[in-house]
């Protein structure tokens, strides 16, 4: 919407500028093109004045100077001098049809307009009236009368005229602008919607017909691609879920009978041990299968989060207590540092518990000789809280850090899997991501591993 108004503003602005330039240009043209031809050479008034000056009385006869003659010649004019009684005293090139005497009425008539259709101009002299006449149809003479009142208000009127012009330009440009905007607006909406990957159907027609069609087809293409991607994700996720499901039944039998054999009193110790190995491996397979399913659901966003408010410190205590309760080996020294009891995140309790457990499990699995494991909760930067699991074990080489959060056997993973099934850290990473958080790993050879799970802070009252 903002964009539309901006476009309209620009459009109106440039239209007004254009109208001003046009006005200016026209004024210049008016001066140079139209009024330029008005007078060839000096104006009639100037000529008649000059003639009046040139004409002198010499010994009872009027004599026109040489320059005056030349003026008359070049402008194809005639001239006469009339005394105060209306009698022509002197004339030069006077046409035949011009009378030689005039009364007051005649003078009043011709002095303003024409004398026998000759345009004439007059100049008052001491001894009479000098009349300069041009040939017929060379000059148009019009009388323009102004009220003084009108003349005085002329500047205001001109200003008003300009203002009206501006208003008109504004109105016209807004009208045209809105018309254009009306055409563009659906296109803009369409493009905005495209960037949000929403389905778009822009009305085709009007001047932007081809653009609308392009937007529509792009939208359709995007939708089809998204649908195809989604369908593929669903298919993959279902495939993995199906496989996991199908593995569960035979695994039930393996686990069941192995643990049954393990408990048989008549079996030799060696056979019991073998049965125990089968059972343990079966249990590993069981956890792999359920991890696989969970990771694939997280990977393809098929896992709806069951969000609730979780206090990080309570979660940490639960994880540590459960490890201790389940007989954690003495060689692992697990400790807890709660910085702030009040840190609450909104999350899926089961998934977060799984993530933290995985991190601790990861430290245990990769440091079989024992290590110190420390869990820490604390505020991270801004709107995130952090949950830190660190150990002082053998660590992960820096160059492998990027790989350990990739799913095993995916294209990005360049190094072979480390021991373990390799789903632990990728799962933590995806759980953090599903919560709009992230997993940050810091480690190097021999420097232990520090895993920071950043989770968005829950707002109070949520």
């Amino acid at each position, binding site marked *: 919407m903002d964009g539309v108004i901006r476009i309209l503003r620009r459009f109106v602005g440039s239209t007004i500028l254009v109208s001003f330039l046009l006005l200016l240009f026209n004024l210049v043209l008016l001066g140079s093109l139209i009024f330029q031809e008005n007078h060839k050479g000096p104006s009639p008034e100037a000529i008649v004045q000059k003639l009046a000056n040139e004409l002198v009385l010499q010994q009872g006869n009027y004599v026109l100077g040489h320059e005056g003659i030349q003026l008359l010649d070049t402008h194809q004019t005639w001239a006469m001098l009339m005394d105060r009684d209306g009698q022509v005293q002197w004339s030069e090139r006077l046409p035949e049809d011009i009378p030689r005497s005039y009364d007051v009425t005649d003078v009043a008539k011709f002095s303003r307009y024409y004398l026998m259709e000759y345009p004439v101009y007059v100049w008052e002299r001491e001894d009479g009236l000098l009349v300069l006449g041009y040939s017929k149809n060379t000059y148009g003479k019009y009388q323009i009368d102004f009220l003084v009142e009108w003349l005085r208000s002329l500047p205001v009127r001109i200003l008003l005229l300009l203002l009206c012009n501006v208003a008109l330009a504004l109105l016209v440009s807004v009208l045209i602008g809105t018309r254009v905007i009306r055409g563009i607006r659906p296109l803009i909406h369409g493009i905005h919607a495209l960037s949000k990957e929403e389905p778009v159907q822009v009305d085709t027609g009007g001047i932007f017909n081809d653009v609308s069609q392009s937007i529509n087809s792009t939208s359709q293409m995007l939708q089809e691609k998204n649908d195809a991607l989604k369908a593929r994700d669903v298919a993959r996720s279902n495939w993995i879920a199906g496989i996991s*499901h*199908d593995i*569960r*039944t035979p*695994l*039930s*039998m*393996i*686990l*069941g*009978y192995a*643990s*049954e054999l393990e408990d048989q009193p008549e079996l030799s110790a060696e056979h019991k041990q073998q049965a125990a190995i089968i059972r343990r491996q*079966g249990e590993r397979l*069981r956890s792999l299968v*359920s991890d696989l*399913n969970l990771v694939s659901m997280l990977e393809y966003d098929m896992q709806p989060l*069951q969000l609730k*408010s979780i*206090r990080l*410190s*309570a979660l940490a*205590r*639960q994880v*540590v*207590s459960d490890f*201790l*309760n389940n007989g954690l080996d003495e060689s692992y020294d697990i*400790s*807890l540092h*709660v910085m702030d*009891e*009040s840190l609450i995140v909104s999350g899926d309790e*089961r998934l977060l518990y799984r993530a933290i457990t995985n991190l601790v499990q990861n430290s245990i699995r990769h440091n079989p000789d024992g290590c110190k494991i420390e869990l820490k909760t604390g505020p991270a930067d801004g709107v995130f809280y952090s949950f830190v699991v660190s150990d002082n074990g053998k660590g992960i080489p820096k160059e492998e850090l990027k790989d350990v959060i990739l799913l095993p056997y995916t294209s990005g993973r360049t190094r072979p899997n480390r021991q373990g099934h390799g789903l632990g850290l990728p799962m933590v990473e995806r759980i953090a991501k599903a919560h709009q958080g992230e997993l940050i790993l810091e480690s190097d050879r021999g420097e232990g591993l520090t895993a920071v799970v950043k989770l968005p802070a829950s707002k109070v009252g949520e």
Partner: protein
Amino acid sequence: MDLIKNKKILIVDDEPEIREMIERFLRREGFFRIYTAGNFSNALSVCRSEKPDAAILDIMLPDGDGFSLLSSIRSFTDMPVLFLSARGEDEDRLLGLGLGADDYMVKPFLPRELILRLMAILKRVYASNIVERLPVFRLGALTVDLDSAVVLREHKEFSLTAKEHSILMKLYENQGRIVTSDALCQAVWGDEIYGYENTLMVHVRRIREKIEEDPSNPVYLLTVRGLGYKLMTQESR
């Protein structure tokens, strides 16, 4: 206890080998009236004719699913039902339990766990005519009677307040294991609000005054620093 082993158990699973395995475990535990069914209609007819006392149901059956089977069974009997399924998604669990199943187990399972859960269900359902009594247990020379909320010590009786009682109850249920202070607060005050830790400490000290020889050096009710508390009974040592 033998009365419980007399109960009729129905196993419904489309895999004959799973049926056979569960039946074998149950027989070994001492159950002998066991019925099996491999599909929906068989299971329903066994339910009608034999009136089993409990059932272990699979969810995916060739001619229907366990959820609707449970609904059909519920229309004529209230017998306890335990779901045993390869479907482990939360929604399935919630659906199963929401339909009135007594428990939900995901395959693959350890037979011992299955038997324990089945026994727990049977005890709960069929031993309820015996008045339920809260546990009474010994800590060294003294006896904690949670049923009447007293501690018997050298022929003297110390009564437990309601809060002390629920703390001890929770600890006893998890004897020998760490119970986080959050879980204890949740059990006693029953909400998510934190800030009860100090109050909890006060209550724990009062309990210790009643059950410990030397409350400053506890041997039964131990503090696990930063985590919570642990109750050490004779059995858990």
